[in-house]
């Protein structure tokens, strides 16, 4: 078995082999091994559910792969509501011709990331379609929200402090470098953020909003949060953590780190008096060493400031940040 063939999706012997050799080996656990039509699991209270599809090119990139990415993306979405991630399901859509050795690597990376993030893969599905060797993964995640936790996008309050958990743009820059065959040492930041979120919640930091900074980048995420709360967000350019190599990469291509995607970073909006503590906790947690306080949430002084996101630039100017328009395309001169 070197390449995926249509018969691997037939439901017959080849499908059985594929599941046994790849998925069962990697994900082996009590629930999955029952091979039932649906997984029956323990749970109670408030349940958080999320789903996402992963279609990244290339499948393996510096610092990660689609397998690690899909677990991180799903787990982080659960964490951002303050939920404790518990179960994951995955649906694989494999195109005819997909490299089985690569699939094995991806699945084993997925299993390792699931262990790191403390989630169990309890159900799965595989389909084979005609195509050109592509691999697509859909994941659904289930978590449980502890009593008393209420974290939501519209939760910002005037006076709150805006934190970000690390350098901006790493994933986007790594993927673009890979696609454009540019050699550098930029690594994707794809990572599960359990440690930092757990620390914040366990230490009773008054967290109002958590959001992972994915597609569209920090500016897009903060703009959404400003609009949903109807407040004014102000951040400072000099506080924005960006790896020097990513900054140079962006400069070269005319890209803006504020609009570059990440896969292992989050924004936390917390009560002012807890901001210092929150920063320390995130910095001491896994993947949080470059965390920074970016700015503040303010009550709008006039109606036109409602939902505005303002960047104070390095030289003392002001720039109003909006959601991105179209795809971030390199300049041509």
């Amino acid at each position, binding site marked *: 078995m070197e390449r995926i063939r249509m018969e691997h999706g037939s439901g017959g012997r080849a499908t059985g082999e594929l599941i046994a050799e790849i998925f069962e080996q990697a994900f082996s656990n009590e629930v999955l091994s029952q091979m039932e039509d649906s997984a029956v699991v323990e749970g109670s209270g408030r349940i958080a559910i999320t789903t996402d599809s992963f279609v990244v090119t290339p499948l393996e990139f510096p610092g990660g792969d689609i397998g690690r990415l899909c677990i991180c993306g799903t787990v982080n979405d659960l964490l951002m509501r303050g939920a404790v991630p518990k179960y994951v399901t995955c649906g694989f859509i494999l195109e005819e011709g997909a490299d089985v050795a690569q699939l094995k690597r991806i699945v084993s990376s997925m299993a390792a990331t699931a262990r790191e993030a403390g989630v169990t893969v309890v159900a799965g599905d595989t389909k084979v379609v005609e195509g050109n060797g592509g691999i697509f993964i859909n994941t659904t995640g289930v978590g449980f929200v502890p009593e008393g936790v209420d974290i939501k996008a519209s939760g910002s309050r005037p006076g709150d402090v805006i934190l970000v958990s690390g350098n901006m743009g790493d994933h986007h820059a790594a993927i673009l470098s890979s696609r*454009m065959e540019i050699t550098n040492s930029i690594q994707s930041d794809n990572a599960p953020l359990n440690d930092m979120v757990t620390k914040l919640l366990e230490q009773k930091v008054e967290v109002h909003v958590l959001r992972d900074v994915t597609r569209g980048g920090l500016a897009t995420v903060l703009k959404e949060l400003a609009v949903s709360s109807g407040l004014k967000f102000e951040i400072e350019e000099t506080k924005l953590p960006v790896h020097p190599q990513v900054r140079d990469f962006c400069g070269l*291509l*005319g890209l*803006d780190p504020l609009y570059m995607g990440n896969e292992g970073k989050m924004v936390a909006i917390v009560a002012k008096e807890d901001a210092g503590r929150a920063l320390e906790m995130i910095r001491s947690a896994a993947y949080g060493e470059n965390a920074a306080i970016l700015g503040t949430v303010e009550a709008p002084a006039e109606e036109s400031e409602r939902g505005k996101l303002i*960047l*104070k*630039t*390095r*030289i*003392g*100017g*002001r*720039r*109003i*940040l*909006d959601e991105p*328009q*179209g*795809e971030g*395309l*390199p*300049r*041509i*001169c």
Partner: protein
Amino acid sequence: MTVEEISSYLREYNGRPLTFMEVCGSHTAAIAKFGIKEILSDKIRLISGPGCPVCVTPSAYIDRLIALAKEPDTCVVTFGDMLRVPGSTQSLSEAKGEGAKVAMVYSPMDMLPLAKEHPEITYVFAAVGFETTAPVYTLLLEEAIREEMKNIRLLTALKTMPKAIEWLLTEGAKLDGFLAPGHVCAVTGSSYFDELAARYQIPFAVSGFGDVELLTAIYGLVRMAEQGENTVKNFYPSVVERQGNTIAGEKMKTFFEPCDAVWRGMGMIPGSGLCLREEYKQFDAGSAGLIVDKKRNLGCCCGKILMGRMEPKDCPLFGKACTPGNPQGACMVSYEGSCYQHFTNG
């Protein structure tokens, strides 16, 4: 002087009102990005000029690209921001949705591997740009000649700066100085604008694209205007030399010659374009005669905005019928367009 001293000078400036034009689209984008207008005194006004290459490309050119992309065995290759520029009836991106063959690349050189892999398909590059981009096309052609490739073409709408700037001045644009394009001058040298400065008695400050570089150049322009120093000063010496990049200059002369060119909203400006020389016409995909410039929406004021006669927010379509998601004119399409920048950066 420190940056703080320059900033406070520009903030507190209270002399005669000054209007400067930044000619280059990358300057327009950088000025918005760094919030520079916020720092300047009300007496210093910056307006955007016609230096965004896709913004000044006439509709007939887009229409021709679309027609080529719909021809059998032909693929149009382009930079990303060209995709959404409206032609007379549709954009390349809309045509692509209907099956036209369009590939987006980051560099013209990316076309070579495509063309080698599919010799049966003719690849046409949408060769727009200014003096900065033109040398890259010559490298592409050199490679095509060396590799004896028969399936590479250019559809050119290349433009050069001095004639357009001169046209603005003769059309009566009320300006006190120009922020001269640093990338262009890297190729041409800062002496490129000497003649214009002398003839029209107006200062030019060659600027880079960083925040401090821009502030310094604007400060320089204010001082030059105050002192009546109508010359070209280079505030980007790390990159720009007086004589420019002579190798790039030679290559441009080898492959291209000046021609008349139509600028969107401005019309025909004699001698303001570059086209392939006769001996390289086999690489031309029919660039001559693309002079019609039809507005998609009659209310569009791109022409006046490109000439600095109107602020984007004063266009009746701005932010209403015309947004980055649904651009009616080219200034709203490109990241370097002044309408786009006004819309996205308030």
